[in-house]
């Protein structure tokens, strides 16, 4: 049984302009102790998927369908529709989360030690002293230099990298089985990024937890993930082991993403490859395959009319494309993208 299995999750926002399905039938699964990378452009529904797992989707968003099955000591419980009180024991207790912006994800009026200790005391009945000792231990675990002193400092006295370590310490307070990292390195500069990723990989090994890593950085995925799921416009378009995906991407979108990496160029002077067009707004997703307006391999009429299903093309390699494995020659530029 996988640690976490998401089945056909639909999370939609009910705005005055109408229903906006940000996540539209996503299925994922994460095994214990592995790292799953969830990749996609901004606005494709990655973060909403993560928030749905914790039941933290803010109003007017709502989980409309699907199951989120978490393995708890051999018993699987569905997080969708779980009462708030029980969800709270899951949050932080079984599933920890770290956020993109370390500058704002700590409360400015409390000391670092206070906040980490709070995360401990929310789930364990321990004394203040014990919680503080545990907080110190956690700061040491996330390799904060001079943790005794940092314990009594306020967030504004720490650098971005250190704050992100504190956020990680908070998420790890109760040794969760799963850590959701929502773009944990996006707001950090490159050297700190590498350190934080290394820390996460090391913690995963030591604590045996699984990580759901949400990112738009394929370089990060290549370095850290066992499996990858690529999201586009609220749907998973490709799912595979990381090695397989990088070796042989099947979906045109994934192919485009990989081609767009700066290191993919032959020479630094070459222009960056790009996928033409923009991610469509959830309100006006195109009919048929949602990627067809930007797809260089688009074929009338099937791509524009019929929604492709997620099919297993190779063992463990799923792709949502009618012509995956048999894409043919790319059109120079897809017609509708050219119009923009």
């Amino acid at each position: 049984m996988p640690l976490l299995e998401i089945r056909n999750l639909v999370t939609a926002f009910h705005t005055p302009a109408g229903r906006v399905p940000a996540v539209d039938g996503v299925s994922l699964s994460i095994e214990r102790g592995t790292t799953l990378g969830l990749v996609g452009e901004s606005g494709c529904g990655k973060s909403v998927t993560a928030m749905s797992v914790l039941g933290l989707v803010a109003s007017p968003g709502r989980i409309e369908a699907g199951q989120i099955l978490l393995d708890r000591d051999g018993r699987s419980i569905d997080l969708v529709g779980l009462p708030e009180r029980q969800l709270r024991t899951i949050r932080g207790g079984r599933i920890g989360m770290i956020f993109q912006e370390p500058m704002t994800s700590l409360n400015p009026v409390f000391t670092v030690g206070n906040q980490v200790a709070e995360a401990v005391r929310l789930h364990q009945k321990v004394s203040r002293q014990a919680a503080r000792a545990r907080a110190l231990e956690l700061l040491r675990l996330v390799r904060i230099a001079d943790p005794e002193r940092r314990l009594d400092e306020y967030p504004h006295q720490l650098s971005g990298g250190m704050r992100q370590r504190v956020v990680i310490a908070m998420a790890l307070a109760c040794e969760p089985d799963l850590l959701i990292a929502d773009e944990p390195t996006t707001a950090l500069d490159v050297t700190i990024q590498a350190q934080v990723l290394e820390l996460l990989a090391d913690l995963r090994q030591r604590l045996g937890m699984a990580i759901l890593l949400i990112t738009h950085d394929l370089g990060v995925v290549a370095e850290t993930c066992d499996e990858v799921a690529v999201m586009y416009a609220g749907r998973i378009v490709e799912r595979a082991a990381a090695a397989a995906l990088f070796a042989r991407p099947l979906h045109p979108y994934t192919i485009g993403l990989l081609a767009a990496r700066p290191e993919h160029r032959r020479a630094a002077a070459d222009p960056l490859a790009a996928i033409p067009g923009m991610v469509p707004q959830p309100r006006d997703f195109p009919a048929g395959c949602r990627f067809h307006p930007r797809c260089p391999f688009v074929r009338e009429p099937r791509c524009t009319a019929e929604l492709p299903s997620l099919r297993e093309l190779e063992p463990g390699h799923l792709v949502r494309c009618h012509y995956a494995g048999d894409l043919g020659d790319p059109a120079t530029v897809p017609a509708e993208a050219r119009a923009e």
Partner: protein
Amino acid sequence: MSEPARESIPPPRPRGFWAEAWNRYRRMPLAMAALIFIGFLAAVALFAPAIAGTKPVICKYKGRLYLPCLAYYNRGWEPVVFARDKFRGEYPANLEAKDPESWAIWPLVFQDPYRAVRRDEWPGLPANPARDQGHPSSRNLFGTTQTGVDVFAKMIHGTTVALLVGFVSMGIAATIGITVGALAGYFGGWLDVVFSRITEVVMCIPPLVLILALLAIVEKPTIWKMMAVLGLTGWTGISRLMRAEFLRLKSAEFVTAARSVGAGPGRIILRHVLPNALAPVMVPITFGIAAAILTESGLSFLGFGQPPPSASWGSLLNDARSNLKMWWLVAFPGAAIFLTVLAFNLVGEGLQQATDPRLREARK
């Protein structure tokens, strides 16, 4: 280890938000002076019966110790033995006559805020002059009223009334305002709609008119009822500010982070959002105290205050109305009201500057 450049600099002592604000506040001389003045007023208000009064602060009578001065805080707190022994409020002579062994520590100034002191009530002290004879003198520092009551004693005891009105009514207003604003802002939805409409309705009620109506209905208008009305009508501004702060902060990432480690709504409101939202409402609360003091004085001046004998500053001004030659009835209470209201406003302004996030950023 990870950030070697930072490690080499010795870090400043950790400071919380309020410590930082206090640090900035301390550097504003005017605001500091105002705060010290309010501290002084608070001390006067607290120890009023020991500064001016006709009842001993502490006395030994028939072998036991008593604190008759407590009567000034609450009539019921006057030791019963003195009523039984028919003191009729006159302590110096009675103590001497009924128990030669007795001793007492007296207030600094032997004058009563509620009645004129009679001749020889205190050995060698003449009766207070009345009407326009009551010029300020060495015996009556700020003069006396129409009926011969010492103005200084009245003003000392009036400080208690003024500060009590200010703090209690704003305490009520702050409690209601913060609660309503926090709940409306945090939970939103129908709760927000209901609370916001209630706020708007209350905002439309002019407190002065409501108080006048109330005073016309109730049989015994007391300052407590006045405070209740001021508090029950004065919370709307605080509530609206609080709601706005909660709306802003509830989607802050640190709140989501707190929820993601399993914190419930109560903990998030009280521990994570409220401390961050408190600074902006401190300012209107301070201004509100000044406004409440002013309202109480105004009502007393109009004769709608506490029924006599009262020691309110406003009622002294009311006394002056009948005889404008008694300038001391205008000057001293007027100055007291002016300075107190000014001090609270200066403190409010200082707080505003000390907690302003923009100024805080500029200093970094």
